[in-house]
């Protein structure tokens, strides 16, 4: 059985044979470009840096429609351009950017399965040359709020049995033993634990550990359905800052074809810091 929307994935061999051109752009999405893109990237790929390019510089929020259009123009992307995303950290931030692109209505969008991890395992070539990209014109659609969950959506979902919450963090974060791994000292919250009623299905259970590629449909179904995460539910995914949860959002929506999946990008750094929010350990 194939994925619900197999066209959203390309493999590393395909990318190595289909470089960027006027109608196709390869974009590396990094959390840490100093240790990623700047050390080497796929020939012709431009960089989207999660912190600088996808977040508003002042307010905690993703970029607005105008900022998104400027980002597209800077990366040489037109409304019908085929965009191939890949990145560091197991494609977490590539998945986050996929979510943002979909939020603003970009249709022709794919992820390179396995990201930098698989590309490097296969000893495929990198370059440090940055492409010279002519600017384009881009008008995005209005934001699709059906893809995004806000704090009030999650609060409302607490009492609903037709909505299921998927906490994709590690078990130690879920139980509140830690609020963030020591590697991310800036991402802590005031309280540890999880949103009441959430299921802990870590993002990593959806990928093959060896090369970071997605598991098969059968394996993915087995991963979610026994825990009540079924296609008839309204599904909300969250993690700590919303990037690992967009990876699981991608799996549920595009690989398994669930009709209603939202990413709660406020995630634990919002929920666990708000006064009065209920917390389960």
């Amino acid at each position, binding site marked *: 059985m194939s994925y619900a929307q197999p066209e959203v994935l390309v493999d590393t061999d395909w990318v190595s044979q289909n470089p960027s051109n006027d109608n196709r752009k390869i974009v590396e999405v990094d*959390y840490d*470009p100093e*240790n990623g893109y700047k050390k080497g990237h796929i020939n012709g790929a431009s960089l989207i840096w999660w912190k*600088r390019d996808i977040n508003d510089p002042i307010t905690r929020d993703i970029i607005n429609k105008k900022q998104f259009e400027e980002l597209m123009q800077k990366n040489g992307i037109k409304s019908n351009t085929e965009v191939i995303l890949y990145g560091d950290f197991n494609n977490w931030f590539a998945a986050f950017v996929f979510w943002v692109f979909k939020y603003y209505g970009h249709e022709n969008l794919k992820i390179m399965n396995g990201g930098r991890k698989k590309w490097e395992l296969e000893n495929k070539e990198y370059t440090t040359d940055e492409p010279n990209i002519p600017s384009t014109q881009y008008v995005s659609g209005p934001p699709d709020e059906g893809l995004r969950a806000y704090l009030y959506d999650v609060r409302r979902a607490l009492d609903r049995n037709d909505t299921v919450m998927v906490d994709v963090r590690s078990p130690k974060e879920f139980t509140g033993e*830690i609020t963030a791994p*020591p*590697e991310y000292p*800036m991402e802590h919250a005031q309280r540890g634990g999880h949103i009441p009623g959430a299921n802990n299905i870590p993002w990593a259970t959806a990928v093959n550990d060896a090369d970071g590629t997605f598991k098969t449909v059968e394996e993915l179904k087995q991963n979610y359905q026994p825990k009540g995460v079924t296609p008839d539910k309204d599904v909300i995914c969250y993690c700590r800052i919303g990037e690992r949860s967009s990876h699981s959002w991608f799996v549920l929506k595009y690989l398994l074809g669930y009709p209603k999946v939202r990413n709660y990008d406020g995630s634990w750094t919002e929920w666990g810091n708000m006064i009065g929010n209920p917390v389960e350990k």
Partner: protein
Amino acid sequence: MSQELPVLKKGIYYIIKDSKTDLIMEDKTKRGLTVKEKSIDEKLNVEAEKGMIHDMDGIGHWVPIRWFFPKNQYDIEKVLVLAEAMEKKYKEIRELTCPDD
């Protein structure tokens, strides 16, 4: 491995352990950080186990977690000077961010 070794000296922010060949100084603020490599720390010029910490922008920085001072070159007094310097640095940071009064 080093966790089972005898402790020679402890501060708020450091711990010095005794192994067969080395005096091992650990930075307690890096507790729990995954060791990603062991290489020479250019500042202290001894081998160190290092991990990576990501800052507000997501950029990863290599940081030493524990240093290995060969016993044939260092005694406890020498290591203690370095440990106390680290202690002083962290106390100053704490004083800046969370002053007692």
